[in-house]
């Protein structure tokens, strides 16, 4: 995550330490984040929506699945329904926070697991080299280019409609994506002087990887990670929108948007509220990704 400090510094990096930025790396990162306005905006939006999602059971005012036809089509800002109700009288606010939770579980939860799997595969391929690399990176290249949505639909054919197919598709493709990045970083780092120096003083392979190589591979991984989360969230919502992802009564932002598609003319909020939410979430993640790239990896900065 941070290149110029910590035990894993090369000779060139050591020279940089003379610049008086000798604070904790996390603090320095936060200072830079505050200066980068777009990234800060992305981070605030993403964190707020994450908070809503994770606190869903406490924030929801109604049972997200309870229907009440007498109270259908209530516009937002009613005393007992903050964001109104949908076409069968379910409380939109309660569905929104639970829908966010679904998106975040598929987006963040699965991408986190994929990060672990991808790190293991990528490190093995990059560090071991030889035929292990040929086999692993060959498989990774094939899977990585494959469209997420097509894989999810084929898996749905095999497993039936529902989130598991989406989760597996996101997990497999994001793992391949992470493995690809990590492998490249490991290849670039393993012969650098600081790694060789650590080896010379007797560090084991595992220590080399965990203490010296992986921390330096974190920057590009985190940057791509935020884009992968956004892609996963879009894919889940899109599949739910066409009826393949989350199955009723579980709310998902995609199914909520689809619920309102026949009532756009008079009761547009049924679709608009989840629609604006997902645009905010994806925009926040993309801005955060661009910002992380600028802050953590200045080499990649777009001019």
């Amino acid at each position, binding site marked *: 995550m941070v290149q110029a400090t910590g035990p894993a510094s090369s000779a060139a990096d050591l020279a940089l330490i003379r610049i008086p930025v000798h604070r904790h790396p996390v603090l320095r990162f936060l200072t830079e984040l505050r200066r980068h306005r777009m990234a800060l905006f992305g981070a605030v939006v993403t964190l707020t929506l994450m908070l809503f999602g994770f606190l869903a059971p406490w924030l929801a005012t109604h049972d997200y699945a309870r229907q009440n036809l007498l109270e259908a089509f209530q516009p937002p800002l009613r005393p007992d329904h903050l964001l109104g109700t949908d076409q069968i009288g379910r409380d939109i606010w309660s569905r929104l926070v639970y829908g966010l939770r679904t998106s975040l579980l598929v987006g963040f939860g699965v991408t986190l697991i994929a990060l672990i799997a991808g790190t293991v595969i990528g490190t093995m391929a990059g560090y071991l080299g030889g035929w292990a690399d040929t086999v692993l990176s060959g498989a990774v290249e094939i899977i990585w280019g494959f469209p997420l949505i097509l894989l999810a639909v084929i898996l749905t054919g095999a497993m039936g409609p529902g989130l598991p197919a989406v989760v597996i598709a996101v997990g497999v493709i994001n793992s391949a994506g992470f493995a690809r990045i990590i492998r490249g970083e490991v290849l670039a780092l393993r012969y650098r002087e600081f790694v060789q120096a650590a080896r010379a003083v007797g560090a084991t392979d595992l220590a080399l990887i965990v203490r010296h190589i992986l921390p330096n591979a974190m920057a590009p991984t985190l940057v791509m990670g935020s884009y992968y989360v956004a892609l996963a969230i879009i894919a889940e919502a899109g599949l739910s*929108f066409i009826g393949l992802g989350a199955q009723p009564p579980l709310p998902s932002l995609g199914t909520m948007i689809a619920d309102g598609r026949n009532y756009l003319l008079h009761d547009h909020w049924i679709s608009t509220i989840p629609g604006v939410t997902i645009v905010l979430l994806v925009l926040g993640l993309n801005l955060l990704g661009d910002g992380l790239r600028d802050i953590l990896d200045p080499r990649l900065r777009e001019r």
Partner: protein
Amino acid sequence: MVEYLARRTARTLVILVLASVAVFYSLRFAPGDPSGVALSPLALEEIRQAYRERLGLNKPIYLQYFTYLGHLAHGNLGQSLINGKPIGELFLYHGRNSLILGLAALALSYVIGIPLGILAAAHRNRPLDHAVMGFGALGMGIPNFWLALLLVYLFSVKLKWLPSAGCCSPKYLIMPAVVLAAEGTAVTMRMMRSSMLEQINQDFVRTHRAYGLPEWKVLLFALRNALIPIVSLTGLRLGWLIGYTLIVETIFNWPGVGYLLVESVLRRDYPVAQFFSLVLVLAVVLSSWLADILYGVVDPRIRYARV
């Protein structure tokens, strides 16, 4: 060039075989079996058994795979369990529609994305650049199904200019093509901009400028090299496009391959789902092969490199 071509083609063939086996196996693990769709729920177990035997579903999966390949080779594609239509006929009709939609979207994304990217690069860090890049961020941030809904609301519900769904005249094509092109346009634009900026700072461009060439001619020289990353991205873009057709065709009821695959998966129409899964996987693999070839054609460094 020949060696490069041969290597890429061999790789593609290996991927094709592996992918088709994977698709075939995964659909064989589907819960329930085709007899549940085709026969009455009251059908006796003996009848179900006979039905499975007739379709060869009681044999080992690898034998079924070869039998299936044999059928394919003889042009015997089977028929839909739902409406009995021959799959070959479905393929011709839906394949044609998907091709029209996909090509329209691809063309649209390049026709809009490339000039806007060049424009943004030429006006770097000025209002026009910011406007174009903002538009790009929006194009990448808006999920396509949400964009679809917004367009339907504006052009079908409010203005009543365009039909909200269906097929098959240019009027029906406009909205699905725009939605399908949106993300690709944004990606192309950003790529074009940064790749142009990279070229503009090169020595050969500075030399052209120093010779007093008009600015548009200078840009033209930079453009040739700047297009290489765009071409190399084509394969990946085609893959995404194929993925997104599944959603866009379903939203707009555009009767293409994606629509058919989603429908058949939802209705458990196994022969159709299997055939069109294979078709789309084939399309993805072939488009990445095509992009590799194109890449080799435009960039001699790739052609001769040992990869």
